[in-house]
C-alpha cells in the first residue's frame, strides 16, 4: 500500500521530468523542421494530454479535499489551508516569471526586425534589378539584331546560323520556333542539355503578336539567365512569325552578388514573416511548460499536503475515539519524524489508558463481587441488619430486618430514621429504643426493645456498633437485631414450670400429711378434752384443714399458670365470646352492672377460645373483686377495630369503676403475686398477660380519669390482613 503509493508518486515525478525534457527539446526551434516537425506536434499533443490528466488529478484531489471540508472531517481544514498556501507559493512566482518571459520575448523578437534593415534589403534588391535591367536592355538589343539577321535564313540552314550566333554572342542557348510553336532549331553551349528550355505557351503567344519578351529567370543548373524571346520578321511569309529565344547568362560577378542579395532578402522576409508564428510557438511552449510545471506543483502540493496531514488527521480521529472511550485504537506509525513520534506517543498513551481502564474495571468487578457476596450473606442472615450513616439515614437493610419488623424497608433507603418512624409508627418503639444509642455514638451497645408490629408484639434483642469511615463513605452505625419473643417466652415459661414443679414437690406434698394429721388430732383428742377445749380443737383443726385446702388450691392454680398448654388457634369473633361469658355472669353478678359495648364489624382473630374465655373470666372477676362493696359498681366490656401503622388490630377493654390501680403497682401489675387485694391467688392478671402474649397481643393497664381502671388488650386482626408476615420480602 505504502510502497505502491511511493511508486506511483515516483512514476508521476518521472513522467513530469520526461515532459519537461520533451518541452526542452521542443523549445529548441533551430531544429530541422522536416525531421522534428512531426515530433514537435506530437510532443505538444502529449503535453496537452498530460495537462488534461494532471488537471483531472488536481480536480479530483481538490474535490476530495472539498468534500472532507464539507463533512468537517478532521484535518481537512488544515489540508485546505496548506493546499491554498502551496498553490499560492507555486503559482505566484511561476506566473510572474511567465508574464515577464512572454513580455520580453515579444519585445525581444520584434526588436530583431528592423525597418531600416528591411528597406536596405529591398533597396539592394532593387539595385540588383536595376543593374540587371541595364544588361537586359543590351541583350534585347542584341537579340533583336539577331532576329533581323535571321529573317532571310531558311529553316534548313537555321541550325548552322544558330551555332554561329551562339559562338558570336556568348549566349547559353539559342532556339528558333516555327509558326506552330515547334522547334526549328536549337543550339546550346552545354552538352548535357539536349532539350531546349522552353518558354511558356503564353510567352510564345504574346511574342507571336509582335511583342518582345524579356525576363530574368533563375535556373537550378545554370543559375540566373536572361530569357529574351523575340519574333523573327520574315519578309517572305505572311502570317504568324517564327520566334527566336535566346538565353544569356548574367555576368559572373553580378550573378553572385544578385543571388546573395536575393538570398539575404528571402531569408529576411521569411524570418520576418515567421516571427509571429515563432512567437506564438514559443509562447505556446512556454505556456505548456508553465502549465505542466504549475499543475504538477499544485498536484504535488495537494498530494504532499494530504500526505502530511494524514497522520494529523489520524491523530485527531484517534483522539476523538479515545474521548468517546475507545482505547483500543492503534494508529499506524509510518514516519520517523516528529509526527511519527507523536503517533508513537499517542499509541503509548492509549495503551496505558486502556490498561488503566482495564485495571479499574477489574478492581470494580472485584468490589462488585465482594459486595454481592456480602449482600447475599446479609440477605441470608436470619438476624435483621440495618445500617445508617452519620445522619441516621438508612443505608442498608436486609430481608430479615423487613421480615422481623413486618415493614418493607428497602424503599426507605436514604431516609432518616425519624422520618421512617413517622410513616411507620410500628417502628416507633424501636426507634425510641435505639436512637439514643445511635446518637450517643457509643462504640457497642445492646438493648432489648419491645415493638408492636403488624404481626403482634415482639421482643427484639438489638446490638449496635459504630462503623468507622472508610474511603468516601462517612462513618455510620449498624444495628443487628433478633426476634427473641419466642425465646424469652420459652425461658419464662420454663422458669415458671420449674417453680411450679418445686412448689408441688416442696409444698403440696407435705400438705396431705398436715391435713391428715390435723384431722387425726381432732378425732383422737376430741374425747379427751373438755367442751371448751373440744371447741378450740375443732376450730383449729378446721382452720388447718381449710388453709391446707386453700394452699392446695393455690398450688394447683399456680401449676395451671405455669403449665404450658398447647394453644389451638382458630379464627373467631371476640364479640361472641364476650357475649357468652357476660351471659354467665349476668345471672350471679349481684349488684354489679355489666355493660357491653361491642363493635359489630369487629374483625376476626386467630385465637384459642378456651384461653380467651379464661382471660375474660379473669378480667371480669378481677374487676368485680376490685369493686367489692362499692355502690355504683359497673363493668364495661368494649371491643373495637383499630387501624394503626397500616395494620389492623382488635382491641378489647374491660373498665371498672373501682378505686383504680395504685401507682406503685402499675409497673409490675401483670407479674404473678402482685395484687392490691386480700383475696385471690395473685395470678389473675399474670395469666391474662400470659394468654395475651400467647396470641401475639399486647396488654396494658391504665387508670381512668373519672376513677376506675381499664385493662387494654390488643390482638392482631386476621380477616383484614391481606398479607401474612412471611410474605413481606425485601424488594
Amino acid at each position, binding site marked *: 500500500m505504502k510502497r505502491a503509493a511511493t511508486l506511483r508518486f515516483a512514476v508521476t515525478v518521472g513522467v513530469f521530468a520526461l515532459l519537461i525534457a520533451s518541452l526542452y527539446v521542443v523549445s529548441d*526551434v533551430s*531544429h*530541422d*523542421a*522536416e525531421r*522534428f*516537425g*512531426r515530433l*514537435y*506536434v506530437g510532443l*505538444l499533443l502529449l503535453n*496537452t494530454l498530460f*495537462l*488534461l490528466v494532471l*488537471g*483531472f488529478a488536481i*480536480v*479530483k484531489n481538490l*474535490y476530495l479535499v472539498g468534500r472532507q471540508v464539507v463533512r468537517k472531517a478532521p484535518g481537512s481544514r488544515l489540508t485546505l489551508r496548506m493546499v491554498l498556501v502551496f498553490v499560492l507559493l507555486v503559482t505566484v512566482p511561476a506566473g510572474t516569471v511567465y508574464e515577464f518571459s512572454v513580455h520580453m520575448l515579444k519585445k525581444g523578437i520584434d526588436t530583431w526586425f528592423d525597418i531600416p534593415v528591411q528597406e536596405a534589403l529591398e533597396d539592394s*534588391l532593387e539595385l*540588383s*534589378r536595376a543593374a*540587371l535591367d541595364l544588361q537586359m536592355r543590351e541583350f534585347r538589343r542584341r537579340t533583336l539584331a539577331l532576329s533581323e539577321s535571321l529573317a532571310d535564313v531558311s529553316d534548313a540552314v537555321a541550325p548552322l546560323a544558330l551555332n554561329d550566333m551562339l559562338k558570336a554572342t556568348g549566349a547559353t542557348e539559342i532556339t528558333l520556333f516555327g509558326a506552330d510553336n515547334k522547334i526549328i532549331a536549337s543550339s546550346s553551349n552545354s552538352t548535357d542539355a539536349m532539350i531546349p528550355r522552353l518558354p*511558356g505557351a*503564353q510567352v510564345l503567344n504574346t511574342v507571336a503578336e509582335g511583342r518582345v519578351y524579356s*525576363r*530574368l*529567370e*533563375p*535556373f*537550378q543548373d545554370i543559375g*540566373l539567365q536572361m530569357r529574351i524571346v523575340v519574333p523573327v520578321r520574315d519578309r517572305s511569309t505572311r502570317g504568324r512569325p517564327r520566334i527566336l529565344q535566346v538565353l544569356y547568362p548574367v555576368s559572373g560577378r553580378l550573378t553572385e552578388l*544578385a*543571388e546573395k*542579395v*536575393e538570398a539575404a*532578402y*528571402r*531569408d529576411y*522576409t*521569411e524570418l*520576418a*514573416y*515567421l516571427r509571429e*508564428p*515563432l512567437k*506564438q*510557438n514559443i*509562447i*505556446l511552449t512556454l*505556456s505548456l511548460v508553465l502549465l505542466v510545471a504549475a499543475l504538477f506543483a499544485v498536484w504535488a502540493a495537494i498530494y504532499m499536503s494530504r500526505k502530511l496531514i494524514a497522520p494529523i488527521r489520524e491523530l485527531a480521529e484517534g483522539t476523538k475515539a479515545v474521548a468517546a472511550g475507545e482505547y483500543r485504537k492503534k494508529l499506524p506509525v509510518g514516519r520517523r519524524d516528529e509526527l511519527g513520534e507523536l503517533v508513537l506517543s499517542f499509541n503509548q498513551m492509549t495503551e496505558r489508558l486502556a490498561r488503566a481502564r482495564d485495571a479499574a474495571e477489574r478492581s470494580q468487578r472485584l468490589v462488585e463481587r465482594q459486595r454481592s457476596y456480602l449482600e447475599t450473606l446479609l440477605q441470608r442472615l436470619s438476624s435483621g441488619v440495618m445500617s445508617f450513616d452519620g445522619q441516621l439515614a438508612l443505608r442498608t437493610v436486609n430481608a430479615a430486618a423487613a421480615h422481623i419488623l413486618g415493614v418493607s424497608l428497602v424503599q426507605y433507603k436514604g431516609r432518616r430514621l425519624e422520618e421512617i418512624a413517622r410513616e411507620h409508627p410500628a417502628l416507633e418503639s424501636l426507634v425510641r429504643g435505639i436512637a439514643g444509642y445511635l446518637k450517643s455514638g457509643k462504640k457497642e451497645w445492646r438493648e432489648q426493645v419491645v415493638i408492636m408490629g403488624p404481626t403482634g408484639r415482639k421482643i427484639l434483642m438489638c446490638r449496635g456498633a459504630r462503623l468507622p469511615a472508610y474511603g468516601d463513605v462517612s462513618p455510620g452505625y449498624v444495628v443487628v437485631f433478633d426476634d427473641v419473643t419466642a425465646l424469652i417466652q420459652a425461658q419464662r415459661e420454663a422458669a415458671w414450670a420449674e417453680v411450679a414443679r418445686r412448689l408441688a414437690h416442696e409444698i403440696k406434698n407435705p400438705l396431705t400429711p398436715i391435713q391428715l394429721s390435723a384431722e387425726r388430732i381432732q378425732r383422737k383428742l376430741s374425747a379427751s378434752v373438755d367442751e371448751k377445749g373440744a371447741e378450740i380443737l375443732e376450730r383449729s383443726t378446721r382452720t388447718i384443714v381449710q388453709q391446707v385446702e386453700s394452699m392446695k388450691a393455690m398450688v394447683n392454680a399456680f401449676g395451671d399458670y405455669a403449665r404450658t398448654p398447647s394453644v389451638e388457634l382458630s379464627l373467631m369473633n371476640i364479640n361472641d365470646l364476650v357475649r357468652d361469658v357476660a351471659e354467665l355472669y349476668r345471672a350471679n353478678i349481684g349488684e354489679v352492672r355489666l355493660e357491653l359495648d361491642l363493635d359489630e364489624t369487629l374483625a376476626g382473630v386467630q385465637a384459642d377460645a378456651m384461653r380467651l374465655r379464661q382471660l375474660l373470666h379473669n378480667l371480669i372477676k378481677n374487676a368485680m373483686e376490685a369493686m367489692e362493696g362499692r355502690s355504683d359498681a359497673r363493668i364495661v366490656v368494649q371491643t373495637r377495630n383499630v387501624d394503626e401503622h397500616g395494620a389492623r388490630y382488635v382491641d378489647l377493654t374491660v373498665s371498672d369503676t373501682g378505686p383504680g390501680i395504685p401507682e406503685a403497682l402499675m409497673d409490675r401489675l401483670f407479674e404473678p403475686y402482685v395484687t392490691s387485694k386480700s383475696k385471690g391467688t395473685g395470678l389473675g392478671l399474670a395469666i391474662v398477660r400470659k394468654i395475651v402474649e400467647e396470641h401475639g397481643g399486647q396488654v396494658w393497664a391504665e387508670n381512668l380519669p373519672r376513677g376506675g381502671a381499664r385493662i387494654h388488650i390488643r390482638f392482631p386482626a386476621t380477616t383484614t390482613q391481606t398479607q401474612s408476615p412471611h410474605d413481606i420480602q425485601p424488594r
Partner: protein
Amino acid sequence: MLKPSARLAVLPLVFLIGVGLSGLYPVPAVADSGSIVRYARVKTVGDLYVLNASINLVLTDAARNALLSGVPLVFELEMAIVRPRKWWPDEQVADMDQKFRLSYHALSRQFLVQHLNTGIQETYSRLVDALERIGELKDFPLIDATLLDPGRHYILELRVRLDIERLPFPLMVQGYLSRDWRIDSGWYRIPIQ
C-alpha cells in the same frame, strides 16, 4: 470509479485549454481555400492506363502571404488505385505521389515550381500559371493494364493538398490547427474503365 461531479469538473479545464489554444490560433469562419478537382479521366493508351486531370488549386491568404515572403510550399498530388470490397477496407493496388515545391524568386519576381520527383524546375511569372502547372495532369501514366484484373472493379482516387509537414518549423502548429492552412481538394474518386 469517479463521482460524476468530479468527471464534470474536468470540463471547465478542457474548455479553458481549448479557449487558450484557439486564442493563440484564431479559427476563421471561412472554410478552406476552395481547391477542387475540376475533372479527371482515365483512358488506356495501349496497355497503359493514363490519367488526364485538372485540379483547381487555390491558395489561402495565409499561404499566399507566406509564399510571397519567401516560404516555399510543398504540394502533394496523391493518386491511388483501390479495389472496393464489401465489409472490408478497400484494397490498395497502387499509389503514386507527385510532389511539387512552389517558391517565389524575389529578384526575378518569378514563381518557381520544382517537380520533386524528377527535380525539374519551371518558372512562371504568374502564380495562377504555377498553380495550374501543379494541378495539371496530361497523359499521366498510372498502371500497366496487365496488372489489373479485368473482371474486377477499380477506382482511382485523386487529391492535392498542401504538405504541412514540409512547412517551416514555426508554421507547423498553425498548419495543423488552423484552417488558414488547409489546402486540400479532398478525395476525388472515379472508376477505372
